[in-house]
C-alpha cells in the first residue's frame, strides 16, 4: 500500500485533522473507482470526465498529488478526443492507469 505523498503541501500526516482528511479521502476512493469503471463501461464520457475532474482538483489537497496528475491526464484525454470510439484504446489505458494508482493507496481488505 502506498502512503500519501509526504511532500504534498498543506498536509501533515501527524496532525489529527489532516489524518482525518486523508482517511476520508481513502474511504471515498473505492466509490470513485467504481464510478470510473461504470462510466467507462457505459461509454458515459461526461460522467467519466466529471469524476476525473473532481479527483484532479481534490486529490492534491488531501495529500495525493499523483492521483490528481493522473486524473488530470484522463480528463484531458477525454476532452481531446472528438470521436470516443477512435481514441478508445488510449482512453482505456488512461482509465486503467488511474484505477491502478488509486487502488495502490487502498488498504487490502
Amino acid at each position, binding site marked *: 500500500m502506498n502512503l500519501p505523498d509526504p511532500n504534498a*503541501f*498543506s498536509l501533515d500526516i501527524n496532525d489529527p*485533522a*489532516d489524518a*482525518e*482528511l486523508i482517511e*476520508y*479521502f481513502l474511504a*471515498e476512493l473505492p466509490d470513485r473507482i467504481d464510478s470510473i469503471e461504470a462510466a467507462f463501461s457505459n461509454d458515459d464520457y*461526461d460522467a467519466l470526465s*466529471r469524476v476525473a*475532474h*473532481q*479527483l*484532479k*482538483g*481534490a*486529490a*492534491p*489537497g*488531501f495529500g495525493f*498529488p499523483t492521483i*490528481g496528475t493522473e486524473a488530470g491526464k484522463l480528463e484531458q484525454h477525454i476532452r481531446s478526443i472528438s470521436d470516443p470510439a477512435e481514441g478508445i484504446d488510449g482512453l482505456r489505458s488512461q482509465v486503467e492507469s488511474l484505477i491502478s494508482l488509486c487502488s495502490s493507496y487502498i488498504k487490502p481488505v
Partner: protein
Amino acid sequence: MTEVQIHPDTSGTPTVLLIDDSQFVHRLLDARLRSESIILRGAEDGQLGIKMAIEDPPALILLDLDMPVMDGFETLRMLKEDPRTRDVPVIVLSGMNSSQDKVAAFDLGAIDFVTKPFELTELRARVRSSLKMYALLQMLAQKAQIDGLSGLYNRQYFDERFRNEFDRTIRHGQALSVAMIDIDHFKSVNDTYGHPAGDSVISGVAKLITQETRSIDICCRYGGEEFALIMPETEPEQAMQLCDRIRAKCEQITWSRHPTRPVTISVGVVGMFDGQSLSTTPEAWIEAADRNLYDAKQCGRNQVKATGIDGTSIGRAKAG
C-alpha cells in the same frame, strides 16, 4: 442535491457559503477553515446555492467555476444580477489557472480568485480579507444612513424608506402614519445656553423618541431641530396617542445644562386608515404633516395635531 449544514448556527459569526459540486471540496474546506470564526454552509449546485444566498445572505460566497448543469460563471452572473445577493462578495475557486477565466470572473463581479489545489494559508488569508472588507462596507453603508448627532436615520434614509412604506400601504391598503416633530423655540436654547446645550437637546429628544416608539417605527432626524417618525400599520389616532406620550415625557425632562428651562415639542401627524384607498403622493403626505405641525405651533406649541390623509379631523392632544 441536498443542503449540507456543516456547523450549527451562531449569531454574529459571519456565514460563508460554499457552492461546489464536489463533496471532496466541501470536506476539505470544512477542515481547512475550521479554525476560522465562520459558519460554513454548503450547496452542491449553483441553483441551490443561489436559493440559499437569497434566503439567508452570507458574508462571503466561495464559488466553484466548473460545475455541471449551471456553471460558476452563470451562477455568478445570477448572483450579481439579483439585488438581494448583489453585494455579497464572491471568491471564485477554480482548477483552471487561466487568466482568461480570472478576467471573466472579475468582470462578472468576483472579488477574488483562488486556484485548486488550495494553498491553505493563502486560502485563509483571502477569506479573512474578503470578510473584513465586507464588514467595513456594511459599516459604511449603515453609517451613510445614520445621522451622527442623534444616532437616528438621516433625511436621505427617511425619503427612501417613506417612499417604500408609502408604496406598500397603497398596494395593500394597510394603515400608515407619519409624524413631523419639531423642538419648540430651539433657537433660543442655542442662543441662551450655547450650541453644546442645543446639541444635547437634539440628542436627548432623539433618545426619548427612540425609547417611546416601537420596534416597527422608523425614527429619523429630518433636519435641524426637526424629526420625522414613520409608523407602519398605525392608524392616525393611535399615532397621535403615541406622539402625545413623547410630548408629555419631553416636557418633564430636566436638562443638566439648563435645569430651569424645560424643552417642549410640537407634532403634526397625518395617517391613513386600514383598508382606505386614496390617490395621493409621498410629497403631499409630508406637506400635510408639515401643515399640522404649523397648526400645532400656531395654537400654542407643546401639542400634537392629527388628521387623516383625506383631511378628516382626528384631533389635538396637549397638556392638561
